């Protein structure tokens, strides 16, 4: 896959966002799905990029999906593409009937699998599920006697309480009470697959949001004049910008490495790379959200200015899936099994084999 091809994908996403921009409005303080963008992305074959054609996908590759996620994060588009894509790729190997309509994934659930009258049922709550109100199925991990399993549950079978993150995106609590799963996968690799992928995908979304915040900030400091000179003339401003750029470069490098590792399939080592990537993305989100606001001054703190579209997401998405601290704890616990810190960093073949 050539660089040109990836640039073309990025430009296509950008063009779709521009066309759909008119409908991307904040209504009642809560974000609605951008149906136009979703429709155009689907038509362009960019909705389920790496998913097999049989499951409504485009049989593409991970670097292509990465570009889509980054650009959607950049433009703060209200579509649940990350979750729908992940749900589809998790289900595709296990069922011929992957729904064409939107799905979501919960990475924070306390679901338990049990048997009632000889039937398998699932109970529990998925908290802060992204965009569940527009999803037909919720894909999540559940605890069974045999260990962790992957289940797909109909959201119509759930009781839902409406919640939103601070970016205004739907993050509902979804409760299932002895509901029969549509799909149940006993394969323990599914758990690693879900967790490795959701951490990387969220990191890519964060990277996009961070890139936008930096672009807005550079534009602002080169335009805004105080004390007779543009802010960009001040050394401290230059250093803040360099700090943001450095954090983004580190996140991009982490994502690129995780993409090439995850291409070989999921395992404990891919989980380690995804955890490490997400730690970098969360650090970046902290630095970029703070400094972009500092450099924008009061105007960046208003509803009118677009900066908040990026910074509220940088802050909200940090809280999805797994906290930075939880990632770091789990990463450290994986290190002895991967041969120590230096082997963990260097031995990519081993990372691919484990």
């Amino acid at each position, binding site marked *: 896959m050539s*660089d040109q091809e990836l640039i073309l994908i990025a430009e296509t996403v950008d063009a779709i966002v521009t066309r759909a921009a008119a409908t991307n409005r904040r209504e009642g303080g809560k974000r609605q799905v951008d149906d136009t963008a979703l429709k155009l992305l689907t038509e362009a074959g960019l909705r389920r990029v790496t998913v097999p054609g049989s499951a409504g996908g485009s049989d593409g590759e991970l670097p292509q999906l990465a570009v889509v996620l980054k650009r959607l994060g950049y433009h703060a588009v209200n579509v649940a593409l990350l979750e729908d894509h992940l749900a589809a790729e998790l289900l595709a190997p296990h069922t011929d009937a992957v729904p064409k309509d939107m799905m979501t994934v919960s990475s924070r659930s306390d679901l338990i699998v049990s048997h009632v009258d000889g039937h398998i049922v699932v109970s529990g709550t998925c908290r802060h599920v992204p965009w569940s109100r527009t999803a037909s199925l919720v894909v999540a991990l559940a605890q069974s006697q045999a260990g962790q399993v992957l289940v797909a549950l109909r959201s119509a079978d759930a009781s839902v309480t409406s919640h939103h993150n601070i970016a205004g995106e739907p993050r509902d609590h979804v409760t299932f009470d002895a509901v029969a799963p549509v799909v149940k996968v006993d394969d323990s690799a599914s758990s690693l697959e879900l967790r490795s992928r959701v951490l990387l995908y969220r990191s890519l979304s964060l990277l996009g949001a961070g*890139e936008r915040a930096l672009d807005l900030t*550079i534009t602002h*400091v*080169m335009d805004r004049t105080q004390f007779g000179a543009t802010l*960009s*003339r001040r*050394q401290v*401003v*230059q*250093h803040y*910008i*360099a*700090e943001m*750029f*450095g954090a*983004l*470069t*580190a*996140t*991009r*490098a*982490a994502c*690129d*490495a995780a993409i*090439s590792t995850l291409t070989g399939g999921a395992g404990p080592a891919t989980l380690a*790379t995804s*955890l*490490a*990537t997400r*730690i*970098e993305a969360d*650090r970046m989100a902290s630095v970029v959200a703070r400094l972009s606001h500092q450099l924008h001054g009061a105007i960046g703190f208003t509803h009118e200015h677009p900066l908040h579209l990026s910074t509220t997401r940088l802050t909200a998405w940090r809280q999805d899936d797994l906290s*930075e*601290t939880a*990632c*770091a*704890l*789990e*990463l*450290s*616990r994986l*290190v*002895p099994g991967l041969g*120590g*810190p*230096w082997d*963990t*960093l*260097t031995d*990519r*073949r081993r990372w691919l084999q484990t």
Partner: protein
Amino acid sequence: MTLTLLAVDVDATMETLRSEVREFIAEAVSTGKFVPDCDNWLAGWAPSFSAELAARGWIGMAIPQEYGGSGRGSLERYIVIEELLAAGAPIAAHWIADRQIAPALLRYGTERQKQEYLPKIASAQSFFALGMSEPGAGSDLAAIRTKATKVEGGWRLNGAKLWTSGGHHAHAMVVLARTSPIDVHSRHSGMSQFIVDLPAPGVTINPILLMSGEHHFNEVVFEDAFVSEDTVLGTIGDGWKQVTAELAYERSGPERLLSTFPLLTSMFRRLEATADAPEVELVALGTLLSRARSLREISMSIANALQRGEAPEVAAAVAKDLGTRFEQDVVDTALRILDGVCADASSSNKLERLLARAALHSPGFTLRGGTNEILRGVIARGLGLR
């Protein structure tokens, strides 16, 4: 602007090489050939160890075979040096010659200079120092005042260089000097580079001790020191251009992130050996490891770009700014979390020894090779801010 860096695909040859280096290091440590330490690429001057590396073809790997090198290229060199750095091996003696002087000679040297120095660099018989900073020229390198005056058959050097690492051991040094007076409108013009064999008449080397008491730095004073015409490196007047072209090598290498890696490894081992390791310590180390991974990816992709003939100045500035702060963060984390472990150079406890060296060397990480403040200016310029 974004940095598009190609990820490096490590192939089987490189992995075989990595295994060979690891076996060699394990054997060297177990037989006491070296004691691992932090920042040993600056402080570990061990000519016999350098000679062992040279015998295996692991010095001068980027030097073509016709000049005595192994010609294996900068990516394979990267594998070797990152293994040595992570293990805390003493590689200071040949470090500057291998990293910086050999590429400069290949790019700018005359045939005579290449014939004379490259084979000796590759065989660890010629160690180099760099004469750049001066008492009045630290971050502001263009302010140098060391002067080279044209005389019959060569040049006379007058002035003083500062912070010259290993100058008291080196066989030669490359000196940046003014060959025309400073022009306020074009401060970067009129500088040239000279290769000065050491010791030499008119060249006095005075020690400057680090705050640890160690002797690595020197002041090198030139008093009418004569160098012949054929010691000019490159073109008279192009010194600034030549020096800045080397900076991408100097700023992006694995030594800008791995100076304290032996300490990080040691901290992980300590926790592995502890039942119920405190979560707060595991979190701190996991955070450091995630940062190390990103930095290594950035650094390797720059090595890849250099191999393709590019000079990614902004990327190199990012690598060094983040990398050296990471090196300090390792030390700070150790000081923060290691209860009952005290930095102590005379300790029999490895962790306490590593921490002593790392803590005492730490302030230098973000100074050497261009202070981080200068580097952030380079990044800002690359982004169009200045």
